[in-house]
């Protein structure tokens, strides 16, 4: 994203250009309409202060029902054994790990938006980073569920952690990518949570100052750590943000690289390939942006935040989606090329089987969603249409789920010895857990937009129309927002 992109929206109206050729950049403006800073605060906190609308309640009841269903399914699963899933001795992982990789991937967009875009000074991130980060945390929570429940004996999950024990030199196997996963995911969740929470502190202070209910006031007071909005506070705050962004940035690349090593370090044809780490990272960002688009379009429409999540935001996200989608497509192509060029009998069979075998429909669905769908985003008209973007984002989500399904199940179901081949058919419990994880995710997300400021109030004020600042003559710097 170049600076010209930022300048574009207001170039006609606000930017005075001298004939000498010096371009005077207008202040960044990512909030539509002439709004006072006060109004911005009011608009953003409205969902938290008013009773939720009918739309929210419908969404919440659906999501919560699915969440409860997840609870039932997991209880049933743990009570009976994972035989209730459709897994078998040929296909040892299917929906469980597909869901795990899918949710971990989703999370990556949040971290990318909040950390990398912060470092790159992409100011359009300000209206979406808070919800994207929340999405990351909820997605990682969903993801973390699966490695736990996919185990045969989930009550022994503590064996996976290298805790001091009295079992002699018994330690975890540091050669196993699953152990790397444990570290990667716990680190990721910790950093994401810290980053998200830290980013919210000024807004929590705003809430503290606004609410009248004593209990809520108390909660916000505790949560906002006694934020006073002083110059020194802000200076330290900015530094900590940058440091955390710096810490989170490598995670965008490392977490999914490590997840991809679950597959890449094995010797299963279709898994055993060096392209996986970058391929998975691109896929993660692609799917994450797909999910961010879905969520933001939904909240934008239902919560009437069009002014803050503008078409220009959607346009930017669509472009990222398209780019990462094309990287993913390129990776698909490379895999096939490698299988052909490598001349490995098993690898070659795997890719022929992927495209012609019993699960070929999954593969073609994946190609449709991940290769063909992003291509429509070349069209400015589609990038400008909320409905079209919504459809695209859903297709991206479906496509990326199937990508993981294809990688996991299609590779396993016909591996080396044909005598060991077997088909995987999902059971109701498989589907129930899949749906339930979505329920859990949306339950948390809906609670989040109801109880926490879903747009960073203090940050968005920095990119509001210039007029907003002139209106707030008494406090032209953005720090006043927190006090307002």
């Amino acid at each position, binding site marked *: 994203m170049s600076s010209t992109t930022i300048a574009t929206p207001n170039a006609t109206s606000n930017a005075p250009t001298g004939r000498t050729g010096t371009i005077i950049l207008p202040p960044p403006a990512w909030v539509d309409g002439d709004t006072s800073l006060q109004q911005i605060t009011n608009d953003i906190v409205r969902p938290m202060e008013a009773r939720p609308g009918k739309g929210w309640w419908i969404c919440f009841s659906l999501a919560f029902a699915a969440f409860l269903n997840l609870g039932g399914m997991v209880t049933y699963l743990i009570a009976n054994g*994972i035989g209730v899933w459709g897994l078998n001795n040929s296909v040892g992982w299917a929906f469980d790990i597909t869901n795990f990789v899918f949710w971990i991937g989703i999370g990556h967009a949040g971290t990318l938006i909040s950390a990398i875009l912060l470092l790159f000074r992409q100011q359009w991130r300000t209206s979406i980073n808070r919800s994207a980060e929340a999405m990351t945390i909820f997605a990682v929570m969903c993801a973390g569920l699966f490695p736990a429940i996919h185990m045969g*004996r989930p009550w022994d999950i503590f064996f996976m952690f290298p805790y001091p024990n009295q079992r002699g030199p018994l330690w975890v196997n540091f050669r196993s990518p699953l152990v790397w996963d444990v570290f990667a995911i716990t680190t990721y969740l910790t950093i994401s949570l810290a980053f998200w929470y830290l980013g919210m502190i000024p807004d929590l202070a705003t809430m503290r100052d606004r609410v009248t209910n004593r209990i809520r006031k108390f909660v916000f007071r505790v949560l906002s750590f006694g934020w006073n909005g002083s110059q020194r506070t802000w200076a330290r705050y900015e530094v900590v943000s940058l440091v955390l962004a710096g810490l989170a940035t490598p995670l965008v690349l490392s977490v999914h690289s490590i997840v991809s090593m679950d597959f890449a370090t094995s010797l299963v044809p279709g898994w055993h390939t060096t392209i996986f780490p970058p391929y998975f990272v691109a896929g993660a960002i692609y799917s994450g942006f797909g999910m961010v688009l879905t969520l933001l379009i939904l909240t934008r429409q239902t919560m009437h935040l069009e002014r803050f999540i503008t078409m220009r935001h959607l346009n930017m996200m669509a472009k990222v989606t398209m780019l990462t989608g094309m990287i993913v497509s390129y990776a698909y192509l490379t895999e096939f090329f490698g299988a052909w060029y490598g001349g490995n009998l098993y690898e070659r069979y795997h890719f022929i089987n992927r495209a012609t075998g019993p699960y070929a429909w999954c593969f073609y669905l994946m190609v449709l969603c991940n290769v063909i769908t992003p291509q429509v985003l070349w069209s400015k008209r589609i990038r400008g249409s909320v409905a079209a973007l919504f459809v695209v984002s859903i297709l991206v989500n479906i496509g990326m789920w199937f990508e993981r399904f294809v990688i996991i199940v299609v590779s396993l179901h016909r591996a080396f010895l*044909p005598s*060991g081949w077997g088909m995987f058919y999902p059971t109701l419990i498989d589907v129930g857990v899949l749906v339930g994880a979505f329920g859990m995710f949306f339950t948390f997300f809906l609670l989040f937009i109801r109880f926490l400021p879903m747009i960073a109030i203090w940050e968005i004020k920095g990119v509001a129309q210039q007029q907003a600042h002139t209106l707030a003559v008494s406090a032209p710097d953005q720090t006043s927002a927190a006090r307002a």
Partner: protein
Amino acid sequence: MTPSTRAEGACKNRKEELVQIGQPDPRAYWKSLEQLHGGQKPSAEFAKGLPSAAVTRTDDTRRDFLSLMGFTVAAAGLAACRAPVQQAIPMLVGSDQIVPGVSSWYATTCGGCPSSCSLLVKQRDGRPIKIEGNDRSVLFGGGTCATGQATVLSLYDGERLRGPAWKGQSADWRQIDRHVSESLAAAERSNREIVLLSGTITSPSMLEIVTDWSKRYSNFRHVVYDAISLSAMRAANEKSFGRKLIPHYWFDKARVIVGIEADFLGTWLSPVEFARQYAASRKPENGSSLHVQFEPGLSVTGSNADVRVPVAPSNLGAVAVALLRRIAQKAGMAGFPEGPEPLADSKKLDAVSEELWRHRGASLVVSGVQDESVQVVVNALNAFLGNIGKTVDTARPSLQRSGDDAAMAELVERMNRGEVHTLMLHGVNPGYDYADAGRFLQGLEKVTLSISFSDRRDETSSHAHVICPDHHFLEAWGDAEPVESHFSLAQPLIAPLFNTRAAQESLLMWLGNDTSHYSYLRSFWQKNMFPHQKEAASFDAFWDRSLQDGVVDFPAKSAAPAASFHGDWRAAASGIIDRQKQQPASREDSYELHLYESVAMRDGRSANNPWLLELPDPITKVTWANFAAVSPQLAQRLSLSNGDVIALKTENARAELPVFIQPGQENRTIALAVGYGRKQVGKAGNNVGQNVYPLAQVSNGFRRLSALNIALEKTGRRVDLAGTQTHFSMEGRPIALETTLADLSKESAAGEEHKATPTLWTEQPQGEHSWGMSIDMNACTGCSACVIACQAENNVPVVGKDQVQRVRIMHWIRIDHYYRGSEDNPVSLHQPMMCQHCGHAPCETVCPVLATTTSSEGINQQVYNRCVGTRYCANNCPYKVRRFNWYNYTENPKFDFNMNSPLGRLVLNPDVVVRTRGVMEKCSLCVQRIQLAKNIALQGKRELVDGDIKSACQQSCPTQAIAFGDLKDPNSRVSQLMKSQRYYQVLEELGTRPNVGYLKKVRGSAVI
């Protein structure tokens, strides 16, 4: 007296007081009242350390066997009665024969089928838990079959009757004896017959009891009925050799073997013995023999043949005739009836007869066709080839099948005419397996007193007046003579679990002879066996030695063979040709039926054995059902796919079965396995598959396992078959490799030796031993005995049809079956596959919790306690041999097989842990056996020697295809085999460094 001495004296006095009550030292604390009172000191017995498995067979531990057998085994058995008791109560006064945790081995004889193989049975804490072959048997040589391995589970079958029953009500033995004696007295007074209807009895002592009966009752008759009988062969041999016999075959002496529908490696007559002989004749090192098989459906035997020709059942006789015509010409016999050529490719028969003729006297033609003429023709073939007395032994015939179809048919008629007063049923179930079961049961109604010795209420015994349940053979005394003058003894391994009584004892009782069966057996042996031997001076010594060895061989009774061949082969041949001509030209929509015994179910007597129900068929890999095998061509023509249910109709029977498309199946023939579809056998086996016995056609009084003019119609229904392997092509991958004799000799000239792929990792293992295994695919016939042996040894659970369909079978060893070539008649390959115990195991690197590691002795070991069940190891295992416990398969009513009942769990091996749900398991190379052998060696203060350790699969293998041993010992058998030109490792290019290797299959010379 100084104060000190006085004190001493006082002390002494006190000491004396204590001594009076038995305490030797006043300062010592007494531990128990026994000790206090000078009782026993149990620790002195084990002064040299705790004892390990007492192998009672070894000469140095042999004791006076009179005391062993007369008292202690009975005591051991009695002690074992405690086993079904739920609470574990330690024995206060233990038997000196049972050391807790130490197994003993007893020789006995298998009762799984009339082949009567000699066994060694492992008894642990008073209960038999594992069956192994007795390697002292010259006939069977230590091998077993799947059915034999599984018989130990039938002992603990909860469906067995707990005691005798009189007219459906449980009764006590005295009551029954009184009723029966009264009835027999009435029978004697009446003009009606007393009949014992039994299966083949190989026990000479029991036959003596039968003789006693015929002496006692003039109206007594003994009818022998086999569900799968060879009575046509016996009849033909009477015409050919003047004696109703079944010859004993020597496949190992044959250089050319021609089978005409006889699955002698899988089910026919004595498969363990034949497989052993066959493997000996097929050793590539000695130049393998040539095996040609003509058969309708693909059998285990056909899958091993060098040349296999699919032939319709109606055409098998013509093939025999065509062969005989060629041989007769070569032998200069004139007057052979003319007839059409049975095969489109007559050159094949030319070549086969050429080979047969070239190996005169060292060839063998066997046929399982239940047709007198065909058998006469086969006899003529063997006679003209000079095989009689060489590969076909009529001097010492086999006694393993003596059923007589005609006598049975006559009996059924007589029963229906009301001429039978008392019918005793022993080891038969005609209500299920007789061709016309309805007619038999009708006749049974008219019998005044019917007595069944069946162990359960089955299709026949539930209609009988009295059920006098016989012991399981592991609870009973007995003997057997499977081949003339080869004897095998049977002894009880456990006191009867239930209130059962040996059938022999009942028969003796009703004769008025109140000696026990045991003493009858002993006196029979004293009278008939003891005089024939010279080594033992006293009968007791002879008896003890015989029981220990399990087998006794005597020279043939008559030195002279049966008369030379004098059958009317011309008439037999022209009879076959005429029949062929009379056959209506086969219509497009009529088919032939071929019924066969499956390796797992055989004739259906073990149909409630969950191990056997879940044993994958060696050819189709289908479990838990029988099916209609159709050829790929037929399936295409009728657009049938696997699982489509078709209805098959003969004149008087109909059966509906799911289709299985079987490559190599004859095009117009549909093959069905008998032994399934039992209605009253028990909860595991009831209604599994369909009973197809009623479809068998009876011709000339013999029940043929085939039928002509079958109508086939589609029902439109579908049934999913539970197969453990669904893809039978290797997809061009180098997995199960083969070579030819010619290539082998070329390669040995080159002297190429197997080299391991280079690696960057440290060499494994680093310990004293390196356990490895070598599997000879040339010797492996696919018989699947190892699968059940492993299941019994390692407590592998049965999971049921649904779980098998979900690809969740738990077997640690499987036998992969691959086809090569055209689907009309492909070449088969059997490859036993289990954990390969990789030196650099892919499963180990990925396990997050180190639950699977390589031991210092090269075993890839699974630590169940540590396993959390991520299944990553199974995903990363290129051999797909890891098995996950998807559920609790023990004490779970959803898996209501043997491991759900306290009785069924008695079969579990205490040396192997029962796995809980959520953990991975797999082949352990029988690590418990390795440990045991090490302990024994340690206690004997000697080194382990090659052969001390035998894995369960290896022990059971009748062809010795599996070798196990220390790869670090350059002289061990497995190390020697590793140097073989045929040695390779599956998927070794992955760098897994397996400790299990394979010897390539060798294809015979391509003369045909």
